[in-house]
């Protein structure tokens, strides 16, 4: 049995599956994955809970499995959240340095961060993350720690992710109903990017796209900080739904066809290829044109990338992504998806893998689990003794704990 104090659990309640990753923090603050539990989800649509009773049962199953695998008792989790209501934007706080010698003190830094967080949000929304980007001293950009510098005007850029309070609380309450503490809520896209990107890639600039069952979350890093986040409430479910509609087959069958014969790009020798699906007795039910299947799927995935591309273009970030694009999530399993993404985004695209975490057998290094692994990593970054200050700042913790106490 491990010492419970070092156990960190990431829990992702996804649209298609629930995944709980148990990590153990080593003495040198690295994270060691010791167990993983998962369960198929019921009662979640587009990343949000629609049937709490069903979803609760599924979460319980995943947690129980993770406890057995890791042989620990899970008391608290870092909970991943997503949903179409989440929004990310950049905000700037300004603070004049008033001390006589114009030296910027720790208090000035706290004040400017406070200013940056004074955001005019809709009343029903709460901040999920407020991540510090860079400081500006008298207009000079890219200063990561201004304490001790001289200047008259201190500014800070923040990336703020916010969402509807009630909808965020739904999953928090569900987890609390299982007698588990929620340490923090974390945006799924952010967790995935933590698992996938190395600090070098963050510095160069990278885009992580997590194509899940119900939502597609994406995060842009540049110059080592988060520049942009987005949630698109479209995912693998939509592909299955499109197939069900287009091929006139039930949803469960469409799901199966997607996994067995789907492709993000049309295969070359498709012309006239057909499939015969049969019922449980082996009698042929229907003939399906594979070309149609792949075209429907390809169009949907293409559209997802197009929407992301236009969003990034609007944010003016396309030029910053020198490390390229990383795909993860169950959707990234679709054959040739990286090629399709390359065609749309005009950038090198690869499938994301986590390499910064030890103890991971190849069975666990799957694109579906990256979010939950990232959640555990987020937790380990939060709990380790800070040698150097974690760039998310103290404020975020306060924000979230306050939020959870409500």
């Amino acid at each position, binding site marked *: 049995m491990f010492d419970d104090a070092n156990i960190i659990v990431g829990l992702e309640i996804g649209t298609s599956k629930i995944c709980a990753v148990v990590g153990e923090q080593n003495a040198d603050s690295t994270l060691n994955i010791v167990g993983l539990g998962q369960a198929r989800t019921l009662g979640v649509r*587009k990343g949000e809970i*629609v049937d709490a009773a069903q979803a609760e049962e599924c979460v319980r199953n995943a947690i129980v499995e993770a406890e057995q695998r890791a042989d620990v008792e899970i008391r608290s989790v870092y909970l991943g959240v997503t949903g179409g209501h989440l929004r990310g934007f950049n905000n700037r706080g300004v603070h004049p340095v008033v001390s006589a010698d114009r030296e910027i003190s720790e208090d000035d830094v706290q004040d400017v961060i406070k200013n940056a967080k004074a955001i005019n949000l809709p009343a029903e929304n709460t901040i999920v993350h407020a991540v510090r980007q860079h400081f500006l001293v008298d207009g000079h950009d890219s200063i990561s720690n201004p304490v001790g510098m001289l200047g008259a005007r201190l500014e800070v850029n923040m990336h703020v992710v916010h969402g509807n309070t009630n909808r965020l609380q739904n999953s928090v309450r569900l987890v609390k109903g299982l007698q588990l503490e929620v340490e923090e809520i974390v945006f799924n896209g952010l967790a995935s990017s933590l698992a996938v990107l190395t600090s070098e890639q963050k510095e160069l600039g990278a885009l992580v796209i997590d194509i899940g069952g119900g939502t597609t979350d994406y995060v842009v890093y540049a110059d080592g900080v988060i520049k942009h986040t987005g949630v698109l*409430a479209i995912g693998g479910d*939509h592909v299955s*739904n499109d197939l069900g509609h287009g091929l006139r087959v039930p*949803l469960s069958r469409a799901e199966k066809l997607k996994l067995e014969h789907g492709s993000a790009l049309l295969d070359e020798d498709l012309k006239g290829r057909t499939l015969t699906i049969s019922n449980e007795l082996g009698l042929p039910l229907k003939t399906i*044109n594979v070309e149609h299947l792949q075209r*429907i799927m390809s*169009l949907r995935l293409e*559209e997802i990338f197009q929407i992301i591309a236009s969003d990034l273009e609007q944010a003016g970030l396309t030029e910053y992504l020198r490390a390229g694009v990383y795909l993860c999530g169950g959707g990234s399993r679709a054959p040739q998806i990286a090629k399709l993404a390359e065609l749309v985004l005009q950038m090198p695209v690869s499938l994301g893998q986590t390499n910064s975490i030890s103890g991971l057998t190849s069975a666990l290094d799957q694109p579906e689990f990256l979010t939950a692994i990232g959640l555990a990593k987020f937790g380990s970054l939060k709990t380790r003794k800070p040698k150097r200050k974690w760039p998310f700042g103290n404020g975020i913790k306060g924000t979230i704990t306050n939020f959870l106490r409500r």
Partner: protein
Amino acid sequence: MNTNTETPTVATESNTMRTIKIIGVGGAGVSMLDTLDMGEFAGAGLVAINTDGASLAASTATMKIHLETKLLRGLGTGGDSERGQTIAEEQFSTLKAACAGADVVLIITGLGGGAGSGISPVLARAARETGALVLAFVTLPFQCEGNRRQHQAKQSLDQLKAVADGVICLPSQKAFKLIDENTSVLDTFRITGGLLMEGVRGVWQLLTRPGLIQIHFNDLCGVVRDRHSESSFAFVEASGAGRSREVVEKLLAHPLLDEGRALAEADVLLVSLMGDKDLTMAEVNRVMEQMGRHCEHAQIIMGAAVDADLKNRLSVTVIAAKHNTASITTSNATTGDQRGQVNPQGATARSTSPNVATAMTLDSREQILARNASRPRKAQSKMRQEQLPLAIISKGRFDKSEPTVHKGEDLDIPTFVRRGVALN
């Protein structure tokens, strides 16, 4: 014969103000007039006109005119508008005297009965002859009140349109949206009367309160003239912090605007905002922005005024009007070609009346409409591209979830359907 129970006292408190007379005609008109708040309408001459002495006796109006002839034998018009008209013609000079000195005459009446339908058009003509601008607020009867009253009301409305500067018309039938199974008849009439009076109040405020952005009476008449059957109005009030948002919500839910549909169809829209001294430009802007959004094609006439008495309330009057070519031709025709046309049914009554010119029967109306139908109606041909209901695309498992909308596209609908990719 006629008995002026009180001498006409035209109260003109301030000389800068227009002299306005509000005249209630007939049983409905008089009782609606009584519901007016005397304090608010100080300065207006309130006049009650009826053929029925009992209803006048109960009225609180400052001036009462009892029209009576031997013909009626003290029994009122008996619901016959021709009797009402005859008697009004006889007493034309009295009516004219009642309107004398007014700049604006507001006629309030319920059409369908004898007095209201018969007297109002004549009164409107009398008021016009004294040089006043005439605006009529009328209710049309409920459908259950029967064909005869409907017919009478329609006739009278056509006559009113021909002579008045503007007619604002409230079909009582619309009040059905406001009442439930248990609403008493009395309450129902009170509701319809109340709605009409809100309109009067709105116009009254429009005319009397100092406007920051003035709406001229001409603007008002321009909006309602020749569009009577299609003009609808609403008066709403709200107070508190979110008042500008609240008034817009109320307007869009207003039964008289068909839950906002009347706004979308309107050609001309008159919006008048009243607030206390705290009325902010942002509030005015917010209301107008919403209005503009809901009626993109309409010409919008806007006014804003300040009234300290409103105390934190914001009141908005909206008059929406739609062009109606048929009613324009009708009103032209009544004054022109129809002069001297004698109708066999109403011949006896009308021969005694000098008002043949404006009198109009259903037959003559039908003739005009038939003539209209035979020539191509260019003015009406404002083509609007109708959207056909498309085949419903099932969203499958996302049918009941919140739609994912991106730049106006519902992304839950399969991509290949939205892009029109054919599968065969």
